[in-house]
């Protein structure tokens, strides 16, 4: 079917005087319908050439459309895949990275136990421990708080023991973690029965030089 059309084209091409000087087929195809008033050129070959051009073009157009469709499909699938995978849910590694979750929970729990536990004569040790655990804003917050605590502890012979009841990771990335911590604080004054207070804190920790530092402590 195509060959008969091409045959016609070749006949037309052969009779076309200008064709010989045309260096490429592409220009011939373009030029032929564009030059209807060439001298001595009858209308018929032009028409057959036009039909031929459209027939010869359709596989190309189809191919191009197919290629575009394939690329578009690929792009759409890729975008959909990204959307499914890169969600706020997947960016949060809490529990999905079980090892990191356990580690940060353990580190922060033991750190809070250390910095919020002190005895009347041992506040210096607690203060020293805090410098190894806290950084940034948390260190400033703690320093302000601990000044009062040190005086109180000395005056009232106060002992505070803090124990983490439960800690959970609300948000975890490669280098930072947000935690919710439930803790019990036992106050003991010499000569009185100890009192227990329950508290909950939100903690922001950052992984620096291979260990977790507490950078922010807030009440919920």
């Amino acid at each position: 079917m195509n060959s008969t059309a091409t045959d016609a084209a070749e006949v037309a091409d052969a009779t076309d005087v200008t064709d010989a000087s045309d260096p490429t087929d592409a220009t011939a195809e373009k030029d032929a319908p564009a030059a209807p008033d060439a001298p001595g050129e009858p209308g018929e070959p032009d028409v057959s050439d036009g039909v031929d051009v459209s027939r010869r073009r359709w596989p190309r157009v189809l191919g191009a459309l197919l290629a575009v469709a394939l690329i578009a499909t690929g792009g759409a699938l890729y975008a959909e895949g990204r959307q499914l995978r890169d969600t706020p849910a997947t960016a949060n590694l809490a529990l999905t990275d079980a090892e990191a979750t356990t580690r940060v929970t353990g580190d922060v729990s033991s750190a809070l136990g250390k910095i919020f536990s002190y005895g009347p004569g041992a506040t210096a040790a607690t203060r020293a421990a805090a410098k190894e655990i806290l950084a940034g804003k948390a260190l400033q917050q703690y320093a302000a708080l601990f000044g009062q605590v040190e005086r109180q502890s000395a005056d009232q012979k106060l002992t505070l023991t803090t124990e983490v009841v439960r800690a959970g990771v609300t948000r975890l990335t490669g280098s930072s973690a947000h935690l919710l911590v439930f803790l019990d604080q036992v106050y003991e004054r010499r000569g009185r029965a100890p009192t227990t207070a329950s508290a909950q804190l939100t903690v922001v920790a950052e992984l620096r030089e291979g260990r977790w530092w507490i950078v922010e402590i807030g009440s919920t």
Partner: protein
Amino acid sequence: MARQRTARQGTAPEGTGREGSAGAVRAGTRNPLVIVALALAVCAAGAAGWGGWLRYEATHDDAAAFARTRDDALAAGEQAVQNMNTLDHRSLEKGLDSWEQSTTGDLHRQLVDGRDAFAEQIAEAKTVSTAEVLSGAVTELDERAGRAGVMVALRVTVTAPKGEPAVKESRLLGSLTRTAGGWKLSALGQAPVGGTGG
């Protein structure tokens, strides 16, 4: 297409030298175009295949599915804990219905059994409780068994007919079980005070 054409031209009776050379020129100039078209087609097929593969992987990514389940469980858990701490004596039935809808298993049974007595109590006390979730986290998740543990820090405001509203912060531990209707609370309690660390 170009090759077919030249071959046919060779056998064509009207094929002349001029025609043959023109065909050769045509084949020569079209080849790069064909190569470009082929390359484009390969690229297009590759793009579609690659996109399809990524899309397939994304749906079958266990970590992504686990993360989604975790967030679903947390959202359901926080909502359920909030529901369980919200009750208005003026719309008792609605409130207690929402309690029952938020729970399953033993906790659900307890609520159903104690409903009438509790409703009477609240109707008499005329209290309005509202709750606000401050923060929550999933502490454990067993995707296969359909069980999860959540911890929720909550601020509860109880308003009685007389006196100032009482605001209390409470820390709750809940167990969630996956049901046909989503994640539901199967146990809920205050985090123990003075217990051993967990």
